[in-house]
């Protein structure tokens, strides 16, 4: 079996269209992020979160309304994968034991014949949450900076670095945007927490992998085809590596989909971010990173000649 054996697609030619698509997605994501606000999870916001496993199905809406009064504020309640499991998140102040006692006694009186066990609890203090948030932000910024520097060292030209980092930024912002928009509808946890940061950095690593392979080919081709027009040479490099890009994307996309389907409720949000991230990462290394390199290089040449 051979896919894309000697392809000759005009990737750079589609620049205009993909630039519009990417630009629109990034802008929409930023609008969503700033308009709706990031949907922080327990890790970054603090609070108390419990997962209850019941014997029989329970109603999320009933639980939410029944708990509002005793807790003093409406808690977030949602299904945890199946009808019999619910997750309750509250910002209620007070001792860990007390808050949990309030929830448990309300649940027991609501469902006297439906016993439950608590299968997961997360309690994060507001100050600790702030620390985690800052550490997460630092790690993402730090990762992008390291990538920029490494590519600068390996490929010697700053616009390669800029292209790679822009592609990564593109991927991460769009995933964030999707997660923000999905906050209301997703049947699984799409809040932003530590595991999502791990997913982001993995996307960064993956997308970078793709981009670097293309750049490596550009570097090689630029030595072999010295007289070829820069734009054409980049296009050729993209085509040369296309088969590899697609094969690796297929295998990776498959395993992250497996993770999304079979990985259990705990990993759902994380795996979903990876699924979206792998697709975006492949797209961005084909259309964003190289297109930007071409753009920056031509700007540079223009500046030089004028």
């Amino acid at each position: 079996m051979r896919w894309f054996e000697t392809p000759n697609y005009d990737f750079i030619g589609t620049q205009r269209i993909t630039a519009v698509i990417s630009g629109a997605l990034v802008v929409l994501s930023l609008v969503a992020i700033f308009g709706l606000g990031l949907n922080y999870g327990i890790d970054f916001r603090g609070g108390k979160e419990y997962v209850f496993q019941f014997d029989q199905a329970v109603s999320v809406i009933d639980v939410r309304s029944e708990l509002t009064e005793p807790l003093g504020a409406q808690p977030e309640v949602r299904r945890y994968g199946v009808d019999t499991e619910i997750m309750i998140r509250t910002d209620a102040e007070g001792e860990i034991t007390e808050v949990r006692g309030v929830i448990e006694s309300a649940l027991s009186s609501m469902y006297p014949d439906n016993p439950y066990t608590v299968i997961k609890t997360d309690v994060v203090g507001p100050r600790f949450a702030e620390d985690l948030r800052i550490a997460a932000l630092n790690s993402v910024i730090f990762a992008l900076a390291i990538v920029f520097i490494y590519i600068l060292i390996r490929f010697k030209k700053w616009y390669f670095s800029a292209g790679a980092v822009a592609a990564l930024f593109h991927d991460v912002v769009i995933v964030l945007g999707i997660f923000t928009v999905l906050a209301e509808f997703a049947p699984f946890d799409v809040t932003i927490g530590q595991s999502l940061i791990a997913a982001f950095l993995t996307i960064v690593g993956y997308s970078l992998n793709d981009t670097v392979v293309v750049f490596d080919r550009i570097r090689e081709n630029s030595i072999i085809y010295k007289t070829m027009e820069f734009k054409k040479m980049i296009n050729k490099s993209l085509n040369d590596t296309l088969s590899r890009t697609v094969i690796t994307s297929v295998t990776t996309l498959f395993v992250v989909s497996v993770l999304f389907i079979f990985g259990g409720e705990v990993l759902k949000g994380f795996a979903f971010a990876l699924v979206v991230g792998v697709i975006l990462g492949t797209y961005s290394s084909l259309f964003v990173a190289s297109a930007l390199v071409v753009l920056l290089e031509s700007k540079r040449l223009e500046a030089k000649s004028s």
Partner: protein
Amino acid sequence: MKGNGFKIGTIVFFLGLTIWYLMPTIQLTLEQRYMNNMPEAERIAYENENRVKLQNLQERSLSLGLDLQGGMQVTLEVGTPQLLIELAGDFADEDLEDVIRIAAERSFDQRTDLVDEVVAEFESRDPNARLSRYYRSDSENITRRSTNAEIATYLKQQRDEAVDRAMEIIRTRVDRYGVTEPSIMKQGENRIIVELPGVDDEQRVRDLLRGTARLEFRLAADPDELNSARTNILSYFDQLVEEEELEVNVLRENLITQTGNTYAFGVAAGPDTASVNRILEREDFQERLPRNTTLLWGASPYAQSNGIDMFELIGVRSQIELTGDVISEARVAFDPNTNVPEVSMTMNTEGARRWARITGANIGRPVAIILDNHVFSYPVVRSRINNGRSSISGLGGLTEAEDLVNILLSGALPAPLDIIEERTVGATLGEASIRAGFFSVLFGLIFVAFFMILYYHAGGAIADLALLLNIIFILGILAGFQATLTLPGIAGIVLTIGMAVDANVLIFDRIREELRAGKTLRAAIDNGYSNAMSAIIDANVTTFFVGIILYSFGIGPIKGFAVTLMAGIAASLFSAIVITRVVVDYLTREKTAKLSFG
């Protein structure tokens, strides 16, 4: 073929190393399976017989994270502000407390060192004032003449020591509690992460970790004084209620109940104690109490009324006669009459001497035994006690008595600990996660393996072999570095399965290109491997960097993900470049050999 001898040597070496590291895990799994098939009684006997061996295996095998085996993780923060106040001892005053409070807020907002902020805040109030007004230490040579900078150094050192001491104490308590493979780590300046696999009694653990077990012996208040103060306060409150200050009503209602106990100031229902406490703190209340008298709640309910526990408010002297420092030994004992568990304590020589003096001077009067500001009992002294014995009764049960002994013996925490993070995972969720992780790995592996054979034929089969070894290597690396396998860690393995073939995809695509260009198979293979190398290295180094960053930022499970990701990169580089090369070279050793890359 040149140099393959060395390559084969390395492969054998690493495989051997991996098997060596994974052996205990395999043995342990087999043992556990063997034991699970035994009847209960036989199993316990077998466990006792082979305890050392099993423990040894356990220690060396690949351990599962809390999210997979269930358990509890707690992050504790040492209360530095309180520590600073306590270090000042008798010198502490409201000014100092105010300075520390403001400094604590600022140090949190601006993420600066609390001690530096205290010094800055103190100096901003009076540039010439000296912190030596509050802090002295003979052993550290901190005197009245010490500069503020010297004191800052001293305080920081005290704080570090306090965190280390708190860690030691917690370790002792956790060990006594009996958890297999607990983990206690320091995080940052003043935080301690405690991981307790398999623990599900959260409240008990919380009490155990935070328990200060501040034990005090105080004389009971004078009953006559207490009674007249009570009458006085009641009439004062009656007046307040007439003036429509209704808040005090809670206390009034509670005080009216008399228990016939001359040392009890009043009784309150459990849920009411918080609001009563607020009133107790009022100044107009405090100034009506007899001098040198403090009111403390009884530890166990005095009675029940309509199913609600009622607690006594007991009057004791403000002065502390003796503290828990003098306890040298504690154990669980049973009251000979009622058979109720209590804690029996022995004091050291100094404590025993003072205890003898106190009891000797107060025969016929009660001495209150107070633990963490709750009065556990106030037995009347019958005679002078010379042997330094005492006991705490009125405990909730055997577990509470055992935990109390544990806390008393492990020593008092240097400063209060706050729980700033707590996570628990039930064992059932852990099992579900293991299953989910296992199936994800299996399905991912099967698909990728099929796909590679379909696409690259024989080459794909070789890559699959490398992939399989890759997973074994990852597990070996995890076991070798004593890392923990977490659910995100398994996700990392699944992801590695998808990405590990990348290096082979790069190589095989290159080989195909070379073949298309008309090269011989051998030349194509040589060029394919060498031309793909720089892309493989670049791509993996950058991802490895990301792994390092993830590791240094993340905690617990996320660290596990970072570890497997990095192990996966290292292993996949080795297996994709070295192992496949050896196999490919072997299969094409004859000039006429054929090998399909699809």
